[in-house]
C-alpha cells in the first residue's frame, strides 16, 4: 500500500515538474529519465540475467545514431525513429548474445568492453562518413511537438520521454514478475538446475541480451533527441562505465534502483565539482569507493532496509 502511494506521488511530481522548474532543470530531469531507461536495460542483462556487460555504451550510441541518421536524411519523423532504434539494437544485441553464451565472467566483460571501445572508432571511420558524419557527427533539430502553445520543446521532450519510461518500465516490471523473470533469476543463480528443469537457457539469455540492448538503444535515441547532437566522441567507454556505476550505485536487480542510479550519474559530478574545482573527479572516485563500502546493495538496498524496519501496512 505504501508502495502504491509512493509511486502515485512520484508520478504526480513527475507530471507537475516541468511546469515548476527551469528549462535547464527540465533538461536535466529528462536526462535522468533517459539514463533510467538505459540503466533498466543494463539491469535486465546484468542484474537479472547475470551476464556482465561493459559495453552498453555501444547500444546507446547505435540507438542515438539510428535516430540521427533517420532525421538527418528526413526518412522518418522523430517519434518513429525511437522504436526503430529499439528494434535495430534488439537485433544487434540478440546477435551479440549468441556468441556471448560461450563466455563467462571476465571474458564476457572483455568482449563487451571490446564492443564499447570499437564503437566510437567505427563511427569515426572514413568509409562510413557519409552516413555518420564522421568525427564531426550530426546535428539535429529539437522536435517541437504538437502543443507548441502550451509546451516548449524541452517540456514536450520531457513528456515524450516520461511516457516512454512509464511504458518501458511497466513492460519490464511484468517481465520480471512473470515466468520470464523467474526463469532468468533461476538461470542467473543456478544455470545447471535451470537447464535440468527444461528452461532453454540459451534462448532466454540471448533474448535478454536483445531486450537489454533494445532498452538502451531506445534510451540512446531519446538522448540524441534531447541533446540535439551525436558524435563519436560522445560515446566513449566512459558511457559504459557510467552505466555500470549507475546500476550498482542505484541497486542491482531493482526497478526503483535505476532511477536512483540515473540521478546519481547525472547529479554527482556536479556535486563533486562544487566540493572541489581542482580535482572533482578525485572526489567522485572517493565517493564511489565509500558508497560501495557502506552501501553494497546500492541506494535501493538502503531504501528497502529502511522500509523493512517499519511495520508493514
Amino acid at each position: 500500500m505504501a508502495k502504491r502511494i509512493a509511486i502515485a506521488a512520484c508520478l504526480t511530481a513527475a507530471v507537475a515538474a516541468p511546469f515548476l522548474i527551469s528549462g535547464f532543470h527540465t533538461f536535466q530531469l529528462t536526462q535522468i529519465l533517459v539514463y533510467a531507461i538505459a540503466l533498466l536495460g543494463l539491469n535486465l542483462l546484468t542484474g537479472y540475467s547475470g551476464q556482465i556487460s561493459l559495453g552498453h555504451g555501444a547500444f546507446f550510441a547505435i540507438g542515438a545514431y539510428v535516430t540521427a541518421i533517420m532525421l538527418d536524411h528526413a526518412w522518418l519523423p522523430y517519434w518513429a525513429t525511437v522504436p526503430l532504434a529499439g528494434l535495430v539494437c534488439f537485433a544487434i544485441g540478440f546477435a551479440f548474445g549468441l556468441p556471448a553464451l560461450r563466455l563467462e565472467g571476465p571474458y564476457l566483460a572483455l568482449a563487451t568492453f571490446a564492443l564499447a571501445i570499437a564503437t566510437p572508432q567505427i563511427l569515426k571511420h572514413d568509409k562510413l562518413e557519409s552516413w555518420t558524419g564522421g568525427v564531426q557527427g550530426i546535428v539535429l533539430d529539437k522536435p517541437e511537438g504538437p502543443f507548441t502553445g502550451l509546451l516548449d520543446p524541452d517540456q514536450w521532450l520531457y513528456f515524450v520521454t516520461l511516457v516512454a519510461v512509464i511504458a518501458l518500465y511497466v513492460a519490464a516490471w511484468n517481465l520480471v514478475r512473470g515466468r520470464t523473470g523467474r526463469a532468468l533469476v533461476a538461470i542467473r543463480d543456478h544455470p545447471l538446475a535451470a537447464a535440468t528443469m527444461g528452461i532453454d537457457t540459451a534462448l532466454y539469455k540471448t533474448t535478454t541480451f536483445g531486450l537489454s540492448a533494445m532498452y538502451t538503444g531506445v534510451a540512446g535515441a531519446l538522448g540524441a533527441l534531447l541533446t540535439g547532437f551525436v558524435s563519436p566522441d560522445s560515446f566513449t567507454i566512459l558511457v559504459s562505465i557510467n552505466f555500470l556505476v549507475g546500476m550498482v550505485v542505484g541497486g542491482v536487480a531493482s526497478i526503483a534502483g535505476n532511477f536512483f542510479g540515473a540521478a546519481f550519474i547525472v547529479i554527482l559530478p556536479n556535486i563533486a565539482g562544487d566540493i572541489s574545482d581542482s580535482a572533482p573527479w578525485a572526489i567522485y572516485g572517493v565517493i564511489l569507493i565509500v558508497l560501495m563500502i557502506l552501501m553494497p546493495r546500492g541506494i535501493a538496498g538502503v531504501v528497502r532496509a529502511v522500509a523493512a524496519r517499519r511495520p508493514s501496512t
Partner: protein
Amino acid sequence: MEALLHQVMLGISNGAIYGGVALALVMIFKSTHHVNFAQGELAMFTTYVSWTLIQAGVPYWAAFALTLMFAFALAAAIQGLILQRVQHAPVLVVVIVFIGLLIFLNSMASWIFGTTIKPFPSPFAVDAWYGTAYFSPHQVGMTVVTLATLAAVYGFFRYTRLGLAMRAAAINPISSRLVGVRVDLMLALCWGFAGLLGAVAGMMAAPMFYLAPDLMSGILVYALAAALLGGIDNPWGAPIGGFIVGVAENLAGSYLVGTQIRLSVALLIIVVVLLFKPSGLFGRKSVVRV
C-alpha cells in the same frame, strides 16, 4: 620481409610491457578472483612519482628502486585498507570500487602533476652498443628489464618460502590458514608485487609513449586482453599473451587497418580466439561439480 620482421620485433618489445602488466592482473585475479581495473592508473601514478624523483636529481636507477618500493607499499595499502573491506561483497560492487580507484588515481595524477605531456628519460643511451636498425637501445633495454623482472617474480614465487605461502593463499585460503599462513597479509603482498610490476611497466613505457595521465589506460586494455588470452588464472600465460597481443596489434595496425582502429581490431581478434577457447589459451576450464 624486413618490414614485417621489424613490426614483429616491435610487437614483441611492446608485448613485454603488456605481459608485465598482464602478470600483475593474473596475480591479483588468482588470489582474489577480481580483475584489477585500476592497475593501469596505479602504474601511471607511480611512474609520475619516479619522474618527480628524477627531476629532483635522484640518479635513474636509484629513483627506479625507490619507486618500486613506493609502488609496492601503495598497492599493498590499497588492498589492506580498501579492498579488504569489500572482500565478501558481490563482484559488481568490487568492480565499482576499482572504477572509483581508477578515477581517483587518474584525477590525483592530473591535479598533482598536471596534464601536460612530459618527456621521460630512458636509462638506455640512444647510441648504446646493443641498439640495432630494428631495435632502439631503449626497446632492447626495456624488453630485457621487463623479462628480468618477470623472471625474478617467478623465481620468488617458485623458490622462496614466502612465495610458496603466497601461492598457497591464492590456491586455497582455508587450508593456508590451517598451516599458519596469514592470508590477508599474503594478499596485501601479492598486491604489492602487482604494484611493483606495474611500476616497472610504466617506467619502461613512458620514454616511448610520453608521460601523461592517460599513459597506461591503453596499455591496460592490451594487458587485460593479454591476460585473458593467456588464461586469467595462469601466470605463465600472461607474458605469452602479452607477446601475442603486441605482435597482433602491431601487424593489424601496419597491414590491416591503420593505427586508428588497431585497438578495436586487436580486441576483436582476441574475442574471436576466446570464442574457440573460452578460458583463454592456457586457462583452466572450471569443472562445475553438480
